[in-house]
Structure formats: C-alpha cells, structure tokens
C-alpha cells in the first residue's frame, strides 16, 4: 500500500514529456500574421528562383516605342522611361534583394558571432579590443557607414555586400558577447572544464547550441533591416550599377515621373515593404517560440 503510494507520488513528479518540436510548431504557427509572413517569404523565394520564367519580359530590354506606358494587360505595371517592363524588373529585383540580404546576414553572423564568442569567452585584452571596436563602429548609423564604405570600394553588388556586412557585424558581436558572458557562468561549463574539455569543445558543444535560438531570432529580424538598408543605398544611387534591377533604385528612378506615372515608384516600394514585413513577422513568431525572454528586447 505505502509502496504504491510512493510510486504514485514519484510518477506524478516527473514532468509530462513535451515534444519540443511540436511545442515550437504550435507556438510558432499560432498567430495568423506569422503564417502570412512565412507564405510571403516562400513566394518571394520562388519568385527569385524562377525569375527568368516568371517575368513576362526581359528586365534589361529597352523598348523605346513603348516607353512610359500606363498599366495595361500588356504591361501589368506599365513601363519605365526607356520602355522596360516594371513587373519584370520587380521580379528580377527580388533576386538582388534576397541574395544581398541572405549573404550579408549570413556572413555578418558568422564573423560577428565568432568575434563575440572570442571576446566573451576568452575575455582579457581580446575582449577590450573587440568590444571597443564594436563600440566605435556602432557610433555610426549603419546607412552612413555603408555609404562611406561603398564609396571607398566603388560600385558593384560585391561591394554593397561588404559595406552592409561591416555595418551589421557589430550588432551580432555585441549580442553574442553578452550571451556568452551569461552562459559561461553556468555550472555545466565548469563541469566540462573539470573533466578536461578544451575551450574549442566548450564553445562548439555548449556555447553555440545554447546561444543559437536567440541568434536565429536576431538573424531573421536583421534580414528585414538589411533589405531596408540595401534599398536605401540603391535609392541613393550608391553601389548597384544602373542596369541591374534593384527595388531601391527603381523607386528613385520613378520619382522623375511621379505626377504622371506614380506606379513606377509605388510598386517596387510595396515589394520592399511586403518582404520586410514578412521577415519581421516571422522573426516575431520565432522569438515567441524559441526564446520568449527576448520579448520586449527585440
């Protein structure tokens, strides 16, 4: 009798087993806007991959006979000042924006987090040098930093990527450093060290997996920021060379014909907004599902 009772109490104290993935899926998909964001991102990715198939015209091909035409069944969003199809240029611009966004966020994350990890874990003079450099870089607004770097390096997509990466990196470094500083106080890190684990092993096996949820959330949010910054640069006419379709420069080109052809500026801007909105919503959803403590901080 008493044994059974003890068994019952014992079994009641074991927490019900929760399938982490199911919990993640339930929280993540519980908000309509998050699902909407996922769908929008998927559509944009498909558009970017199949751009040549999906666009009705060559985005580079001028048609001087058909310049500045209003939206019509032939050109759904009209044509620009040299007769290029606006819809086709927006479709190809998806490639530019997504490619730059993904590369910049990825590269900045890898370099920035490595630096942050080194600064946070090893500490000492490395911490001082890395974090003071981060402080200095962060005194310049990202767009100004990218503007100066892009001007230093000259035109081209590669240089825009470098400029935006340098602008974004400090954010990751500071975040990762903070994460690692908090994580390394945990007792399991001490235990690892007691059994003779190397620093590299502790970093790869423990610090990275524990910091990862936060970093995934931040990376998603930064995709939106990067797309906005890239659009801002190309709006100012810096970086991407003119014939390459880019949403920001399309908004700028359309300004000249704003009174008669507002669609030339409106449509690409709407595309930027939709993509950034989708990234932000998915970022919000990931935050709630992966790391609710970040609520309010990001």
């Amino acid at each position: 009798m008493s044994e059974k009772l003890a068994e019952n109490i014992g079994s009641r104290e074991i927490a019900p087993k929760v399938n982490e993935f199911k919990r993640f899926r339930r929280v993540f998909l519980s908000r309509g806007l998050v699902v909407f964001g996922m769908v929008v991102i998927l559509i944009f990715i498909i558009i970017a991959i199949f751009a040549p198939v999906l666009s009705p015209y060559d985005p580079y091909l001028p048609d001087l006979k058909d310049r500045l035409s209003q939206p019509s069944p032939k050109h759904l969003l009209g044509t620009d000042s040299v007769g290029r199809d606006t819809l086709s240029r927006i479709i190809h611009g998806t490639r530019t924006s997504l490619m730059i966004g993904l590369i910049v966020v990825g590269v900045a994350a890898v370099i920035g987090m490595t630096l942050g990890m080194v600064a946070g874990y090893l500490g000492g003079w490395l911490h001082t040098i890395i974090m003071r450099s981060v402080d200095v870089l962060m005194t310049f607004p990202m767009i100004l930093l990218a503007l100066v770097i892009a001007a230093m390096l000259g035109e081209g997509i590669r240089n825009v990527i470098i400029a935006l990466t340098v602008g974004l990196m400090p954010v990751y470094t500071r975040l990762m450093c903070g994460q690692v500083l908090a994580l390394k106080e945990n007792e399991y890190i001490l235990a690892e060290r007691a059994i003779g684990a190397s620093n590299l092993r502790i970093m790869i096996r423990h610090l990275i997996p524990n910091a990862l949820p936060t970093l995934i959330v931040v990376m998603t949010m930064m995709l939106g920021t990067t797309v906005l910054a890239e659009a801002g640069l190309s709006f100012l006419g810096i970086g991407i060379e003119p014939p390459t379709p880019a949403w920001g420069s399309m908004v700028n080109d359309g300004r000249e014909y704003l009174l008669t052809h507002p669609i030339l500026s409106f449509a690409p801007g709407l595309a930027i907004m939709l993509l950034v909105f989708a990234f932000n919503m998915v970022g919000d959803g990931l935050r709630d599902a992966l790391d609710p403590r970040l609520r309010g901080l990001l």
Partner: protein
Amino acid sequence: MLSFIIRRIMLAVIILILATLLVFFAMRFLPGDPILMLVTANQQQEFNEEYLLELKHQHGLDKPILVQYFNWVGDIFRGDFGISILTERPVSDEIFRRLPISIHVAGLAFVIGHLIGIPAGVICAIRRGKWLDTVITTLANIGITVPNFWLGVILMYIFGLYLKWLPIMGYTSPFEDFWMSTKQLIMPVICLLIFPLAGVTRQARSSMLDVLHQDYIRTAWSKGLRERVIVIKHALKNGLIPIVTLAGMAVATIIGGGVIIETVFNIPGLGRLAVSSVISQDYPYVQAISLFVAVAVIFANLIVDVAYGWIDPRIRYG
C-alpha cells in the same frame, strides 16, 4: 552617482578618440586621389608634376600620416575642419551653416516621435487586446517596415502633387517664415519619425506589459491607488529602462534616416552634404560630418547611461 558619471564620461572620451582615428584613417585610404580630382575640376590649370606637389603641400598631404592626424585633431579643437577640396572653402563654414538645419529636422522628429510613441505604447499595454491596442500595434508593425524614402515619395505624391496641400521640397528657416517652414517640414519629419515612433511604441507596450504583471503592481491596486498613479509612478518608471535604451538608439537611426530624407526632400542639411561629398570624394566634408555624427551618438549614449543610473540606482554600483 558622481563617480558613476565620471566613469561614463571617460569611456565616452576613449570611444570618441577611437572614432577620430577610424574616421581619419578610413578617409586616407579612400581610393581616388582627391588632388587629381581637383586638377581635373579646374581644367584651366596646367597639369604638371610641380603643380601637383605644390597642391599636396598646400593641403598638408605630403607630411607623414601620423603628423597629418595630429594636425587634423589640433585644428578641430580650433574649430578648423580643413578646406574643401572641390570648392576650396573652409569646411567649418558650410558645416555650421547646415548643422542647425539638420538639428531642427532631426530634433523635431525625435521629440514628436517619443511624445506620441511612449503614451501610445502605454495605452496599448493598459488596453491589451482591445481594438485600440490592435489598431496601434498593427500600425507600429507597419511603421517599422516601411522604407522611409518610399514613404517620402508617396507623401510627396499625395500631399504635394495630387492634393497640393504642402510644398514638395526645400527648407525655410523658421525665423524667416515660420508658417512656410512648418509646412515644408511636415513630410520630412513624418518620414524621419515613423521608424523610431513605431519602435518605441512596440517597446513601451511590451515593457509595460511585463511590469504590469508584477506583484508590486497588484499590491498597488489593492492599496486602492488610482490607475493613473499606478501606471505612471509604479509601472512606467520601472518599464523605462528598455525604452530609454531604444531612445538612445533612435538618435543614430534618425541621423541615418536624415541622410536619405534630406536627399529626398532637398533639405540643405548635413545628411545631403554627406551623400554629395561621398560621391564627389570631397573627404574633408565626409570626415567632418562623420565626426559630428560620432559626437552626437556618443553624447546620446552618455545621456542614456546616466539616465540608467538615475532610473535604477542598482546600475550605478554595477
């Protein structure tokens, strides 16, 4: 508190010194020889070695780079930011003529953004889940998404070209014609404040929601305090730290936005000068503007740090 403030000021000075180093050396490694650009700009001049050397000497570009740096810093303390390579006029004249314009536009955006954003976020938190919360939160989510230059173009189309209510671009000093100045500023200020406004609203909402669930708020309710006292004195003061952090970051955001928005609305401030001088590689201007931006952002961070210490005494001894 005093030793806390002094420590913070020293850190700010160190970062400022590092920033001057970065600005100076980044500009020196710019590709494109500014001297050659100057020569091509003045076609009438004879293009020969001697003349180039003399020009380099005039601009102090033939000295060792460290000497150049210390000369540059020394000159700055005397209010001399060098001479523009293209216009050959003192950089400081142009900078100090444009600085008040940028401060006017950016300052309005900062103040109005926070005056609306903080109460909006607080109202959302108090009325969580009600229609007002839904509307404001949705607007805020759109606000952190919209590209400011595109918003500028759209406002220009609707209110400038279509309805013809507002002038589409330009800047007039408020001391000259206050009404005209205000009308010209409405659109650029909206474009600049939209991102910080949306951000601070979201932040104020979520940090208020956090605080409103705390035990001491329940205690305050059960003591029978009025809602206004609870919200402002007990909740807002404790939820203020993340809001202040974001306000500090908004300074950099608004300055960055100014670079684009001043270009869109043709406002003769420092932002537009930054873009045009980056393009023309007139590096004394870029140097001076970057330096002003660094000082503004570092100063904002210093204020934020001191505010932390004031809001939360624990931080002073951290």
